[in-house]
């Protein structure tokens, strides 16, 4: 009779295979580090209207720095992709998994972009959105993502709760309410969320798929 642990291992292998792409967390963590760099850049070089009013316009080199950072992030993600392929192999999702992934991805992009568009429209009417709306929509999306991933990914619910709290803090006026500040808050939150979520996902992957040991089982 098979042991309970063998059945548990088989079930775990099934769960890992079903969520393999989502578990490749170092890619996400690298993206998060890139977003944090973008946040640091936006603090160092604030895009205020007065900067654009300067004679000759703003200097070129901060933009070159931003493009270099973006390039380094993309190169890092590509390298990590290859490393994962070599170390953990490849798993191709089913059509249904790919469809659900595409819908979730599109919803994530919309939860990021639509509130920014709304805030932009509000600003154009000479008003200021008093809260960073995207923090709420993005947190809501992270909740959906965490629920889609399953019970082992409860950390996304904690990350989403932090996002809601951050959003409430901006609504309470603890941070300046302007569009450029809202973008910085988003960069900071999404950067930290991606970094933390990605690292935890990677830890789950490494614990679920340890290095092959010298097994005594034969192929009979």
């Amino acid at each position, binding site marked *: 009779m098979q042991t309970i642990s063998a059945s548990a291992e088989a079930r775990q292998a099934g769960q890992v295979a079903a969520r393999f792409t989502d578990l490749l967390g170092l890619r996400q963590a690298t993206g998060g580090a890139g977003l944090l760099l973008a946040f640091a850049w936006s603090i160092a070089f604030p895009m205020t209207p007065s900067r654009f009013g300067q004679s000759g316009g703003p200097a070129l080199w901060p933009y070159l720095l931003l493009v270099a950072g973006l390039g380094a992030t993309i190169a890092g993600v590509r390298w990590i992709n290859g490393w994962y392929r070599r170390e953990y192999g490849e798993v*191709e999702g089913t059509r249904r998994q790919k469809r659900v992934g595409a819908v979730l991805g599109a919803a994530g992009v919309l939860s990021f972009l639509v509130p920014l568009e709304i805030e932009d429209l509000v600003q154009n009417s000479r008003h200021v959105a008093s809260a960073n709306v995207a923090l709420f929509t993005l947190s809501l999306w992270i909740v959906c993502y965490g629920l889609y991933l399953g019970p082992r990914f409860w950390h996304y619910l904690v990350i989403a709760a932090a996002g809601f709290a951050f959003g409430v803090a901006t609504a309470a006026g603890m941070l300046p309410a302007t569009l450029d500040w809202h973008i910085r808050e988003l960069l900071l939150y999404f950067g930290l969320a991606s970094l933390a979520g990605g690292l935890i996902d990677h830890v789950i992957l490494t614990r679920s798929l340890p290095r092959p040991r010298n097994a005594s089982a034969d192929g009979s």
Partner: protein
Amino acid sequence: MLVPTALEAGDALDRLVHEPARLIILTALAACARADFVFLQRATGLTNGNLSAHLTRLNEARLVTIEKRFIGRKPNTLVAITAKGKRAVERHWSQLEELRAGALDLATRSGLPKESR
């Protein structure tokens, strides 16, 4: 009688699927479209030779298909579960579930304390 029924259910288990490494392979493959050799090695913890032998066995029983390709100059083996393999592993899990439920029932009737079940 419950005990003979449970034993019969145990005997009815497909030995080809029931072997722990092969159950891991088939369960993992049933959860995706296909996976490569490196992933299956990680999931099972088997050595190259052992995993190859298990895959050959499953391939001979037409429970999986094996496709060999090259990525650059490196060989890469992709494994996918067949419809027959999917049915076999689903049936196996439902049989295991029945066995578990039977064993729990037996433990309840024999008055075993909960923590020892």
